[in-house]
């Protein structure tokens, strides 16, 4: 090493990662010749879709690759020292103390069986010589910094007592307590809603800057990259596509893949025209309240918890109405209730003018066919033991007016329309997330419904796939003219797909109106916060 040139904090040099190719099969390369550098205190993003190798690259830094995968070439240097050559003991001194890691799933990355205090103390006990009092003091101070309301009380609590956003802040606290030189954040906010996401990331940036910690942010969300990082590295299928200053990459992408990624970001198109007021009302919701049964005591009935308070809304034929709100705002519950899948505590839901609770058996059967649901998670919404054909056909099981041959033809036709004609005999596990979601959409549309409730249908998907699925939904919607209640937390998606928006918070509708006017001129404080928290490319201001 040349003394006059300071080594970068972290240096990847020709790193190759491949499956270890046991049992005769040829090793498969997952990451090919990756080289890049991170300077001290720098904020760098690694961008890519699922399968791009971004998480593997991050895990390779700490030799935390999953079994069956190994690094077969290249060096990973931390301040000039090759981490790949370190023994287990030396590596353990680096892990946590010099390089900290925050994971994607706050629900599972904290140990549910031990208190926050022990969780926070663990790292300090391992890596720093501190007395019990000092550890406690530092823990409290750090919890205060991550804005946990009552740190002393928090220390005595267990992870399940906190929300996802709070857990992620606690996780952040536990990692930054050791003042690492590098923080690896692997999709730290993907599981959080927009507001908590913003809170966590702003804290992360603030704390890292104060400590001089460099941040490697792994994400698929270009909005976050624009907002929080200085430099970006774009990966596709294990290869480096482009790297450079964030602003330049996003405003002037040179690589075709990067360009596609940037273009597939949902952005405000010409505002969608509202459906004429003369269109018939398909769904009418009046003063609806929904309750969850409270936790039952041993000898007393639980006190029901009200999650939706007196909501009014209507959806007209051929209209897409977006319902936005943070997790826990009651939007999903409302979506279930309008389909009659959740009992109402009060109020009425009318479908084509008929009260759901007063439907005859025949009307109810008809309603089941004309009102459909698309779920968020394509992994749990398809029965793993049925073939695609049978999954889609299930919707028509009770359509007695159709012949078996007609049903088969309809299923085949809709599969062709969603571009999955050749997948009819596959099982869900043989398909990607985007393909599964298209199956879910086909299942909902095959019965020619009048109303489709789409519950976060794209939030589990990669951006480019998101665009395909949204486009498909729009195409089918204009083709079949069904009304759609589109539930989401992503305002960018709202702008793209809906003409009218309903904003929910704490089980109440706080604002309602045309997307164009609500977004331009939010009348409510909550809506404004939500809009500000939505990362978009035009806020490409670097963090410092």
């Amino acid at each position, binding site marked *: 090493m040349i003394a006059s040139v300071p080594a970068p904090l972290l240096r990847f040099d020709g790193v190759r990662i491949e499956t270890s190719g046991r*049992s005769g*099969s040829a090793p498969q390369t997952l990451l090919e010749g990756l080289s890049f550098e991170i300077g001290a205190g720098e904020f760098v993003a690694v961008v890519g879709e699922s399968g791009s190798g971004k998480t593997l690259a991050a895990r390779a830094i700490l030799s935390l690759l999953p079994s069956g995968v190994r690094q077969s070439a290249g060096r990973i240097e931390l301040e000039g020292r090759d981490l790949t050559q370190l023994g287990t003991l030396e590596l353990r001194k680096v892990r946590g103390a010099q390089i900290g890691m925050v994971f994607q799933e706050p629900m599972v990355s904290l140990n549910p069986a031990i208190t926050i205090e022990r969780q926070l103390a663990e790292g300090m006990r391992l890596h720093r010589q501190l007395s019990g009092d000092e550890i406690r003091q530092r823990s409290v101070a750090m919890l205060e910094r991550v804005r946990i309301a009552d740190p002393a009380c928090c220390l005595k609590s267990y992870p399940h007592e906190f929300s996802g956003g709070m857990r992620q802040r606690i996780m952040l606290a536990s990692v930054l307590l050791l003042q690492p030189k590098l923080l690896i954040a692997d999709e730290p906010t993907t599981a959080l809603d927009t507001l908590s996401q913003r809170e966590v990331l702003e804290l992360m940036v603030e704390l890292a800057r104060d400590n001089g910690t460099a941040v490697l942010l792994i994400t698929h969300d270009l909005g976050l990259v624009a907002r929080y990082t200085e430099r970006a590295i774009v990966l596709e299928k294990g290869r480096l596509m482009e790297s450079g200053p964030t602003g330049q990459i996003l405003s002037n992408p040179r690589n075709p893949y990067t360009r596609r990624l940037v273009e597939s970001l949902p952005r405000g198109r010409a505002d969608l025209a509202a459906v004429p007021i003369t269109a018939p009302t398909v769904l009418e919701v009046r003063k609806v309240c929904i309750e969850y049964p409270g936790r039952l005591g041993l000898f007393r009935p639980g006190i029901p918890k009200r999650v939706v308070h007196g909501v009014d809304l209507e959806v007209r034929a051929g209209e897409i109405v977006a319902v936005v709100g943070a997790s826990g705002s009651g939007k999903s519950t409302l979506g279930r209730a309008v389909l009659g*899948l959740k009992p109402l505590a009060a109020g009425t839901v009318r479908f084509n003018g008929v009260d759901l609770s007063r439907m005859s058996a025949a009307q109810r059967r008809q309603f*089941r066919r004309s009102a*459909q649901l698309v779920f*968020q998670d394509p992994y749990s919404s398809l*029965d*793993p033991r049925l073939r695609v054909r049978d999954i889609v056909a299930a919707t028509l099981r*009770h359509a007695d007016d159709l012949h078996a041959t007609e049903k088969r033809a309809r299923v085949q036709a809709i599969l062709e329309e969603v571009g999955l004609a050749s997948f009819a005999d596959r099982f869900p596990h043989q398909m990607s997330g985007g393909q599964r979601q298209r199956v879910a959409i086909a299942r909902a549309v095959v019965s020619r419904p009048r109303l489709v409730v789409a519950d976060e249908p794209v939030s589990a998907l990669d951006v480019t796939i998101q665009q395909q699925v949204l486009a498909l939904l729009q195409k089918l919607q204009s083709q079949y003219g069904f009304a759609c209640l589109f539930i989401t937390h992503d305002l960018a998606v709202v702008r793209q797909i809906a003409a009218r928006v309903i904003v929910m918070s704490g089980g109440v509708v706080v604002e309602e109106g045309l997307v164009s006017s609500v977004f331009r001129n939010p009348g409510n404080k909550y809506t404004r916060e939500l809009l500000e928290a939505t990362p978009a490319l035009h806020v490409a201001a670097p963090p410092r």
Partner: protein
Amino acid sequence: MSLRLRHAGLNAILGMALVGALLLTIGIGLCWMPYDPLAIDLAHPLGPPAWSHWFGTDEFGRDVLSRSMLGARISVLIALATVSVAIALGTTLGLLAGYLRGWTDRLLMMVTDAVLAFPGILLALALIAVLGSSNGSIILALATAYTPSVVRVVRGTVLSIREREFIEASRSAGDSALATIVRHILPNILPPVVVLATSLFGWAMLSESALSFLGVGVPPPAPTWGNMLSASRPYMDVAGWLSIVPGLCIAGTLLGINLLGDALRDWLDPRRQS
């Protein structure tokens, strides 16, 4: 991957071979046995394995091979019937408890927990004391003792599956509760139930021998592997074959059933078919 597949295939073949051998033994035993398994020959007690008696003779001079062949029939019949009753009853109750939740669940779980609180063998003993010692009452007693564990496993699995969204999708397509259960829940609880059934089979066989040991099992002189094993205990040092033969029979059968159960579970799983 290919190695694993071949490995799995090997296990399935071994399982089929063992179970096939068992069925063959039972089949042959139905039409022909070398000796009358109940014929006592006090002139030749505890005879070692020889050409005339392949597996030797027991303390009453009865042919061990013939007794093992007849014992296979009785032991397997009892174990199979016990497991069938326990699985059928336990799956039904577990589905009800897990799917309906609420009061049904509480009531069913209260009962199963109460039954689980008794040691299984003690419960079976009490039931047999009331019902009298016969094959039917042994089956009923053992099935009663095993049902609660099936209920617990099924209920737990149902609880996790009923929250998956494809169940809601089925409901929103207008399926009745029964259709949802039969079409979507039942196929998805099969894997744990198959595994449980194969291990219950082994337990049932051993419990039957334990009951025989306590004197309330299949009444002598009818042989079962279990009561042959317990009868051999005093002669273990002078006539080891008396314990080894039924012991090997039980071990081989359990191995075969377990391997076959695993293969069946894999075969039913669409993820393992490529």
